[in-house]
């Protein structure tokens, strides 16, 4: 649809653009300056991560590095255990993603394709659940994991991530599945195909675009979670990278080059996802607001 609208947009903006032509250069300069200022914190982080604290103390922040200190990254990776924290993040994120997408697509299929008592009620329960601040669940879930013997395990985090993100995933997939033409499903039903099979072999393959967008977005969300890891884990060896960074900050209070190097390493997986799956990421962001 977007590609169809494009030519219209160009022709529409045409006369406006010619009027703006003189200001165009000024506009570019202003925009570029603004954007660069906007990104200044990121540049500062990049620059700090390859310096030494002595260098910064001696020459001040606004000076060229006297020496390229790549060992900050090595120290953060091994000594500050960012390697371990990143691995933990993956151990938590990947099963969470698989679980939430599978369970949510099951529910979404039922909510999108069947008329039954309580359909809207369940749908709105999911929607309401995603919008509430999850902090209100902290204490009961803390107690629940203690009772189940899951406290301080990966399993506790995986389960709460799956459960909490179910709402959003179901919401998005249900609205996507509603757009699939019903004739395809009816044809399969006439051929004697069971409902579960229709879901697996017809609905799920058709929903791949929304699954991809959801997976990309949820990956960054679960990967970037901090609060649940803070509450449900105690052992340092289990912490995901977000909670690990907070520990690292407490440990190397004044060593900002090392802290920034750790922060940059911690960001790599999500940046990777962003660079290579950007289209899906942006789609995912707008999915939830599509209605």
């Amino acid at each position, binding site marked *: 649809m977007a590609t169809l*609208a494009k030519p219209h*947009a160009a022709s529409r903006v045409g006369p406006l*653009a010619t009027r703006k032509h003189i200001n165009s250069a000024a506009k570019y300069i202003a925009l570029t300056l603004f*954007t660069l200022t*906007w990104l200044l*914190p*990121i540049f*500062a982080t990049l620059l700090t991560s390859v310096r030494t604290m002595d260098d910064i*103390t001696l020459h001040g*922040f*606004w000076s060229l590095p006297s020496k390229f200190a790549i060992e900050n990254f090595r120290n953060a990776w091994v000594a500050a255990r960012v*390697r371990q924290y990143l691995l933990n993040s993956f*151990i938590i994120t*990947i*099963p969470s993603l698989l679980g939430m997408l599978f*369970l949510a697509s*099951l*529910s979404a299929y*039922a*909510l999108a*394709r069947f008329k039954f008592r309580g*359909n809207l009620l*369940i749908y*709105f*329960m*999911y929607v309401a659940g995603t*919008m509430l*601040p999850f902090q*209100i*669940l*902290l*204490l*009961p*879930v*803390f*107690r*629940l994991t203690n009772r189940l*013997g899951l406290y301080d*395990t*990966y399993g506790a985090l995986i389960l709460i991530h799956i*459960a909490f993100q*179910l709402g959003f995933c179901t919401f998005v997939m249900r609205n996507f599945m509603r757009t699939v033409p019903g004739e395809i499903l009816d044809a399969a039903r006439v*051929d004697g195909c069971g409902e579960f099979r229709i879901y*697996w*072999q017809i609905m799920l*393959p058709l929903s791949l675009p929304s699954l991809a967008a959801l997976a990309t977005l949820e990956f960054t969300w679960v990967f*970037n979670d901090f*609060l649940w890891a*803070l509450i449900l884990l105690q052992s340092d*060896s289990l912490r995901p*990278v977000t909670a690990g*960074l907070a520990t690292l*900050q407490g440990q190397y209070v004044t060593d900002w080059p090392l802290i920034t190097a750790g*922060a940059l390493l911690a960001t790599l997986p*999500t940046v990777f996802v*962003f660079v290579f799956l950007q289209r899906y990421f*942006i789609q995912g*962001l*707008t999915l939830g*607001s599509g209605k």
Partner: protein
Amino acid sequence: MATAIKSQPLREPLDFAGANFLAILYAAIILVAFIFMPWMWTEIKYSGARLMSDVLTGGSLKTFSTWQIVFIPVSALLALGAGLWGLMAPHRGALASVLAAAIGLMGLVYYIDLYWVREGEVAEYIRANLGAGADLTLVALVGLVAQTVLLLPPVNILAQRLGRRASALRPPVPQKWTPYLFLLPALALYLVWIIGPTVYTFYLSLTDWDGVSTPNYIGLRNYRILFSQSALTESLGNNLRWLVAFVTVPTTLGLGLALIFNTDMRGGRWYKVSFYSPLVLSWPVIALVWAWVYHPSKGLINSLLIQSGITSDPPGWLADRNLAIYCIIAAATWRQVGYVMVLYLAGLKNLDPTFIDAGLVDGANRWQLFRHVILPLLAPVTTIVFIISVIDSLRSFDLVQVMTRGGQGTRVLANYMYIEAFNNYRMGYGAAIAVVLFTISIVFVGLYLWRSLKDELEY
């Protein structure tokens, strides 16, 4: 398909969905056992995932070598993938089933080696300490290999006939139950982990629970204490500041940027990427980045102020009680602008250009066009942006936790709750704060639900 089979009884087509489904089931069992079950010792936290993490990062448990421990989850994921592929591409069902079985066979060889063949101190130790997760995995591996018997034509046809016979004998599941069966697994999880805890928060807020002993009912005492504390006013005020900032700054700035970048400008993509790149950073990373920017003596801002000679006594930013919360909110806003911009860009893309053409024909200038055509058309997006801003501002926690740990008068409700519950062990009191947070947010959630309920009923 059923009728076709009956008319040609001699050439029944083979169906591999059953085999692939079993492959997925067994692979999932291995994965779940690896993450949730004890593999060594009897404590639940000594799961396979824990062992893997420890081994890979050179932790204390050196009983496994790297490839041995990575082998299990990776092969389980591969078998899972093979099964999924087989189900989604039925014409490759047999191949997928064989692949899954091959992976299972490798796993079995590995297990037989570990259980019975290998000798030496380490092997003895592993054998003596294998937990339930390892046993369950062995069973699932046998299943993973055994599902291939369904590929043999006689077995396959027999299984299909048995399946048909069983479904003919068994009273069919009533049509009206089907949706509930689809919903059941997710709903069960949701009830236990989300709905139940939400309700339980209310009960906890009426108790003196300290996190260890059993909660005792104490009536409304927590609330009486809570409402007499200045800390509540501080947190509520900070949440309100956050909300006002989120509703105003990112919305206007995001809309402005979206309007600029919506036109086809050269290099527009790079500008857009610059503004939404902060979205991929986690809150703790943003907190660290900005804490460094705000650093009182060496940070970006103050060293600029000092070195450029503007002032020799710059503000302390996060160290300054009057400024700290605004500094944190500024950092949060920095991330939020990109999000709002993405939402408005999507909204602008979906606008019907004929309205704008009509406006141009009527001789509207750019401001009039924006004010009377574009803005009203964007109203649905604005509502969403508003709701997201409110919710995100009520959810704020991470930045405050990492940047000031709730000091310098920067507590928001969530931090206040966290501090009371996990630093002071007053969990009942913390639950009362959670109820306050719930009450405020349910107003906005209710508004949103009411609005979308209207849409749904029209649909």
